[in-house]
């Protein structure tokens, strides 16, 4: 199988290990990725706060390339995915202001997580599991933009999404029910109001600890970065040492599929996540 691939800026930088583990996992699953040839930034949070047309046009330039390729478009970043869906709906629903573009809205735009839990892909994953992750306890953290707003994302279960739960359970992990699956980490306020991010991400980390799991698993580079990099500040706020491991779901999928690179990916995290895997005899 072959799909178009839009990594987005974060997967080449702050979410480097998300990009690397995505590529590795899809290679193991015999899914060929064709990166959009000259992709540009989707505009992320900043374009839509500044100018609606600019935001849609930045995303649409990529969609035009994807339409030329004629394949499904797979996007691992939650923010990029949502901006592409916003552009798609704006154009196909003929919203104002009208956008001048050859894009016809024919590209199936899929977040990587939703793509991987398609029946056919789940079947292949199940067959290729080499190292079940039995005993590893986690909560699934989806964040905001994979599911919201559902009129844009077409999410089936926007308040209680299931894709990651389903996938990680298949790998043998013990997934705990959690009320914070789609709560916000503070997103793009990372630099401008780190105090707010520490408050929101701090709550998520505490709630994961309270749930009694070993780690939080994410599907968005901004969520992972906020949860992982703010723990020194969170520790200061709470007056105790907080060192709670976070993962990208692709890192754990790679581990279960027998990839040798998991140590390298998780070594890029700020909070040590490798020791948890080692203590469970998984690494």
């Amino acid at each position, binding site marked *: 199988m072959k799909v178009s691939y839009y990594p987005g*800026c*974060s997967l*080449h*930088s*702050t*979410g*480097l290990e998300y990009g690397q583990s995505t590529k590795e996992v899809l290679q193991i699953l015999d899914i060929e990725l064709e990166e959009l040839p*000259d*992709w*540009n*930034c989707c*505009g*992320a*949070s*900043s*374009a*839509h*706060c*500044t*100018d*609606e*047309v*600019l935001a849609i*046009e*930045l995303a649409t*330039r990529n969609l035009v390339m994807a339409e030329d390729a004629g394949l499904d478009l797979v996007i691992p970043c939650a923010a990029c995915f949502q901006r592409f869906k916003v552009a798609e709906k704006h154009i196909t629903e003929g*919203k*104002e*202001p009208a956008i001048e573009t050859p894009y016809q809205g024919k590209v199936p735009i899929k977040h990587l997580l939703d793509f991987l839990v398609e029946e056919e892909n789940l079947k292949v994953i199940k067959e290729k599991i080499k190292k079940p992750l039995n005993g590893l306890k986690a909560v699934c953290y989806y964040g*905001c*933009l994979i599911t*919201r*707003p*559902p009129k844009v994302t077409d999410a089936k279960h*926007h308040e209680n999404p299931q894709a990651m739960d389903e996938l990680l359970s298949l790998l043998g992990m013990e997934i705990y029910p959690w009320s914070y699956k789609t*709560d*916000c980490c*503070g*997103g*793009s*306020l990372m*630099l*401008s*109001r*780190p105090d*707010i991010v520490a*408050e*929101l991400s701090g709550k998520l980390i505490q709630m994961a600890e309270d749930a009694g799991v070993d780690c939080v698993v994410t599907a968005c580079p901004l969520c992972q970065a906020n949860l992982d*990099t703010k723990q*020194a*500040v969170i520790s200061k706020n709470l007056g105790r040492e907080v060192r709670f491991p976070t993962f990208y779901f692709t890192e754990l999928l790679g581990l279960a599929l027998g990839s040798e690179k998991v140590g390298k990916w998780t*070594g*890029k995290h*700020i909070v040590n996540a490798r020791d948890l895997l080692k203590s469970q005899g998984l690494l």
Partner: protein
Amino acid sequence: MPSESVIVPDHTWLAEMGKSSGENASICYQCKTCSSGCPVAFAMDLLPHQIIHMIQMGLKDEVLKSASIWLCVSCESCTTRCPNNIDVAKIIDALRMASIKSGLKLGEKRPSIFHDSVLLSIKKTGRLYELGMIGIYTLKSGDMVSNIKSGSLLEDAKVGWKMFKNGKLKLIPKRIKGRKEIKNLFKKLKRGESA
């Protein structure tokens, strides 16, 4: 004579906002679902339902000067849950644009400087160049000084250094071939052709 606490509604701005956001704020019946689910409510000066009410009342300057419109993280909880299907997050986007246009002093300037820094980077290279963006943001926002004072600079530097060592912050920006196309999109913005 009316007392000072009486607000005489002025619907001109309501209509203007309806046009710029494409959303009808007048159908809000103040159920407060938006504010109840807003993750940033704890830090806001005006809550989302209050903002919508103030649009109905025509309290333009008060809303455009509020910190809240810049603290909104666009998590889309309000938009998703509004029983009247008002796209509250889209209204907030339109308010941010109106706030910049108005020339009023922003209630919270740092998120706006952040967005400008991100867009400058995209305009130049076609992609987000993190290190450059962080540099521009830090200089323009004056965060360097406040971070030195609060001691958080050291903590940030530790995290930043680890990210740099791990290859997460690149020294050289990646420039796409279609930079001219991207610049043209921004030119339209500058000429005010966009909404």
